[in-house]
């Protein structure tokens, strides 16, 4: 096996007095597709938000590509990471949000172009060409000059994916990306993710309630319950033949078609 691209080592996270994550150990291999499932409040989203540097762990270590994300070495001591340390690692991670979070004052083309131009200093002309290509890939090539408010939820989420892909991350995080969508729009978004998964080279961590989808595209499913990893393994084993009572109980609320 390769060196993992992401490593969680005994990671804890508390919000006030409430401990949301109670010691997470999790390795993500390059190009691996991992689905995080579990009841709401189990800490799934917090796990990926810490990797995106949106939440800081209370305890434990997260490594990205062998580098400690939240601590840095300074004069021989480990200290809290500063902005430039986070900035230097964050480029490997991308994220798609439940509520899209597109920039409403920019067209969808500008949404895609902003970060590569500002952060990577790539030429505007080239970025524009790749942005158009990327938007065509998610089926929105004819909408590049529209504003987010003019799109449906499914279209917005596809733009959000194109925007995140423009930064060519090594790990892409999906935070319940279909939960805010009308049921009839879920399919088009999952289709795009499925295509991305097939392309292969990018690792993906998906927080999802779409069990069929997890079964279909994930290499591994991780079941989180009450702040700990209760069970993990091959999608078939987890979703079709669950061992723990809690997972059986959780899955009984979904119909897995297989």
């Amino acid at each position: 096996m390769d060196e993992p691209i992401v490593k969680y080592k005994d990671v804890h996270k508390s919000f006030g007095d409430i401990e949301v994550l109670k010691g997470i150990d999790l390795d993500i291999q390059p190009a691996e597709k991992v689905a995080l499932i579990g009841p709401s409040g189990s800490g799934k989203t917090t796990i990926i938000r810490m990797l995106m540097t949106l939440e800081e762990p209370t305890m434990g270590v997260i490594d990205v590509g062998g580098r400690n994300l939240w601590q840095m070495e300074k004069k021989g001591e480990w200290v809290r990471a500063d902005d430039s340390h986070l900035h230097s690692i964050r480029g490997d991670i991308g994220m798609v949000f439940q509520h899209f979070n597109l920039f409403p004052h920019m067209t969808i083309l500008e949404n895609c172009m902003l970060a590569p131009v500002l952060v990577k200093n790539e030429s505007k002309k080239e970025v524009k060409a790749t942005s158009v290509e990327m938007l065509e890939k998610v089926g929105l090539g004819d909408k590049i000059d529209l504003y987010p408010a003019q799109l449906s939820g499914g279209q917005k989420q596809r733009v959000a994916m194109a925007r995140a892909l423009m930064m060519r991350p090594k790990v892409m995080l999906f935070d319940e990306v279909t939960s805010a969508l009308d049921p009839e729009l879920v399919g088009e978004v999952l289709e795009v993710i499925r295509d991305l998964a097939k392309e292969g080279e990018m690792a993906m961590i998906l927080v999802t309630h779409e069990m069929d989808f997890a079964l279909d595209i994930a290499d591994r499913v991780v079941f989180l319950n009450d702040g700990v990893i209760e069970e993990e393994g091959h999608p078939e084993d987890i979703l079709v033949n669950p061992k723990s009572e809690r997972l059986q109980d959780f899955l009984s609320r979904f119909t897995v078609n297989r």
Partner: protein
Amino acid sequence: MGSLPDIFSTLMQGLKVTLLVLVLSIICSTIIALVAGLSRVSTNRLVTGVTGFYVEIFRGTSLIVQLFWFSYALPGLFNIHLGSDIWVAVLAISLNYGAYMSEIVRGSIQAVPAGQTEASIALNLSKFQRMRHIIIPQAVRMMLPEYGNYLIQILKATSLVSLIGLTDLLYYGNIYRSTHLSDSPTVYLLLLVMYFVIALPLIAFTKKMESMSKKGVALG
């Protein structure tokens, strides 16, 4: 008995001062509001503390008293002279309205949904780039309508500067009235109309800003 053209031409002598104080105050208070508003959302405790103190002091005391303070008390007490009366007036009005308007700046910045900041962190934008490209442009759209309202209020506040001896519209109105007491109604009616006419472009600006601000703002 004075005629309407007589009254009008007397009042017109004050127009220049009123407009000058108005324009300079708008420029200065806008700059103060932006600086103070941004300072109040800073993560530096000292910066937020000092600006918070400034805002509360200037919101909590009356503009007339501030005008008198700058004009008479500061020179008398500390021998500080702030320059010509025009600048004293502009400074007092700008500090006062800058304090109010900084609250709109702060409020609008804080009203930009947290998801916008999160998305820009996820795209690895720097703190400055987040402010410059994501937060401020959206905050400005939200603050514009109320900003327009304050411009109209500044215009009305300029009428106080006659109290420290500036020769504005109201000053000439009072001068004229003191020698032509029977013309009082005409003088003040004309003054109302003149202030309203000056306010018209500001009102139009506010309306325009309201319609503009509805475009391109995140809904939730």
